[in-house]
């Protein structure tokens, strides 16, 4: 919630790093998101939050109506609750996928079991979020879905002065060579593919380390601390930013 209020200062001065966390989405303002969720209070919160972030949100309270809207409105992304009146969330996704609709879908569910997750993703969901979730997490994931890195033949990733050679497995910041361990290379690669995006701890755990659970220790912070130590030299402008209570973001600017 702290993030919501500070967002409004974005257009003014880019003072707080928290505010900058979502500044990146401004260029894709008015991305259309279809929310299919039967609980009206949850839906209201999500709608309010996403609208604040500059998304255009359409809400549908049941599966059948949701499927109609998905066909007619052609949204850029969808958030679908699994348990819906009328038609199950997964059935909606399956129906759309059969019609060759490739809209990215984030599945919401109170069912958090590993099997549920696997099923959700197998049925055509692109990401899976278990209730209860932090709103930041939801927004970060929607944004990630909207900006999924395209399949690229590039063998070198560049963000500002940072350069990552995927073949030689080397990293440079300007002229300075950064010596990375394989696990650090993997993390940096993932972050550079998604520069200017907020990456939550859960996303990093799932995608970089393939962890399907949240470990007791703050694994991500420790790894990120080490990476940051190597990427951001003492006299250089920091590129890896910690968004308090949410996650991390890599960007060229301050």
């Amino acid at each position, binding site marked *: 919630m*702290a993030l919501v209020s500070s967002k409004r200062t974005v257009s003014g001065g880019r003072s707080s790093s928290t505010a900058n966390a979502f500044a990146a989405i401004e260029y894709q303002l008015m991305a259309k998101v279809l929310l299919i969720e039967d609980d009206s209070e949850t839906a209201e919160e999500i709608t309010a939050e996403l609208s604040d972030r500059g998304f255009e949100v359409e809400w549908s309270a049941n599966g059948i109506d949701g499927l109609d809207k998905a066909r007619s409105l052609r949204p850029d992304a969808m958030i679908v609750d699994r348990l819906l009146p009328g038609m199950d969330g997964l059935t909606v996704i399956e129906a759309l996928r059969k019609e060759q609709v490739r809209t990215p879908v984030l599945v919401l569910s109170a069912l958090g079991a590993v099997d549920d997750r696997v099923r959700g993703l197998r049925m055509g969901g692109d990401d899976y979020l278990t209730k209860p979730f932090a709103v930041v997490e939801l927004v970060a994931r929607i944004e990630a879905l909207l900006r999924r890195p395209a399949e690229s033949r590039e063998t070198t990733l560049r963000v500002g002065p940072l350069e990552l050679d995927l073949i030689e497995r080397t990293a440079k910041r300007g002229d300075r060579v950064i010596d990375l361990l394989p696990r650090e290379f993997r993390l940096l690669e993932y972050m550079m593919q998604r520069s200017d995006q907020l990456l939550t701890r859960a996303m990093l755990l799932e995608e970089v380390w393939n*962890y399907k659970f949240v470990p007791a220790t703050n694994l991500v912070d420790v790894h990120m601390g080490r990476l940051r130590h190597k990427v951001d030299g003492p006299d250089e402008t920091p590129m890896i930013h910690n968004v308090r209570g949410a996650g991390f973001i890599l960007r060229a600017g301050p």
Partner: protein
Amino acid sequence: MAGSDASLLTSGRTSGHQDPMRQPQFIRSNTFRWALAVSAVFAVFVIVLFGFIYWKIDDYLTARSDRVITVELDGIAGLSPERRLEAIDEKLRQDPRGVQVAAIFAADGHRITGNLESLPPHLRIDAPAHGTDVIRRDRGAGENQTVRAIARRMRNGDVLVLGRNVDEAGEISHVVGQALALGLLPGFCLCLLAGAWLSVRAQKRVEEVNQRVQRIIAGDLRERLPYRNVDEPFSKLAVIVNGMLDEMETMIHALAGVGNDIAHDLRTPLTRARLTLERGRTNAATLEQLQAVSDKAIAGIDQSLTIITALLRLAQIENSRRSAGFGDVALHEMLREVCDIYEPIAENKNIALQVAVKHRRSVRGDQDLLIEAVANLVDNAIKFTPEGGEVNIELLQEDSETIVRVTDTGCGISEQEREAVLRRFYRSDKIRSTPGVGLGLSLVAAIVKLHGFRLAIHSGAGGRVEIVCPDSQQG
């Protein structure tokens, strides 16, 4: 609610109890019906037996008497006519019971001597002995009798008739019949009585069991089913059920303990969040202060949610069956990966984290869950090892098992605590100050159990925990 459910159950099981119009319960019982069926079969058998015996005896007696009269007839026929008269008279005199029939009729049909009124009309002359009606003159007013008789024409034209009343056979048959009937009736009754007794006895035991079960449903978990000796099927069943009840009682007690722990562990962060919000509502003057309060409250709620998530996950793993989705998990790679992930954390704490893998081993299992289990063990080991210590992950191959061993140089687990550490929310007094929820090892234990592996916790200085995978599990 629970009370009304229980009473519903009761009426369902012993439905007759409240119904005054019912048949006696034992009549409807299966045991009794079987007894009834057996009695009926028994009765039919006895009746058939009786019929057979009667038929055989009758046959035998008739044949015997036929033989006797034929021999006698031959004897008398061989005498002179005068001697025949004497022989007949003699024969009739020696027959006080009056079963003999003997007479000589002249060729014109009138009686010369004997106890027959006239020549029996249906008696075939010179034929073998056969049954016929005769009118006797020595009994009342010419009594009509059915006898086995034989007749032969003598050389002088007289007809000699000899016969024997075979009612005797009927009498014997009657006696035998009576005996069998006498046997049948008590036998039948005995069967029914035995059936009723068995049925009532079974009914009683069911009722007894029902009462005990009702007590258990009502919450008396120490109640057990009655049994007499173990060889009897009913007692065997009771012993089995008692075993199950023992297990359930232990589980329920464990759960009750867990419930208290959960309540406590959930309440603490929630209380903190509530206090924070309450104080913030009155005291916060600026937006920044309010935000700080909210952040603190959210952190408290998040901790509660973490506990709930961990519990649900634990329950989910404990309740799931071995999934068909198991695959081959390369343990050597997995251990290296876990080590890789935890290395920075260990380094931060100045702990040497090492992995020693001599063989490449694979087991059948769920990759994600096994990583979670090993990661939890390593996490624990690092957490409970003081700075400058060591944590080792080893993959060992023994005779028929593969062992993942995590050792550390921390305080270890005492003998008394070995069982306790697997309990949910258990936190050793020695580590009270370390952050954590106390569900880690329970989770590991659940995952290990799901895979059919074994978790070995060694006591003594320095922690040593092993996941033992029997070779049969290897894919």
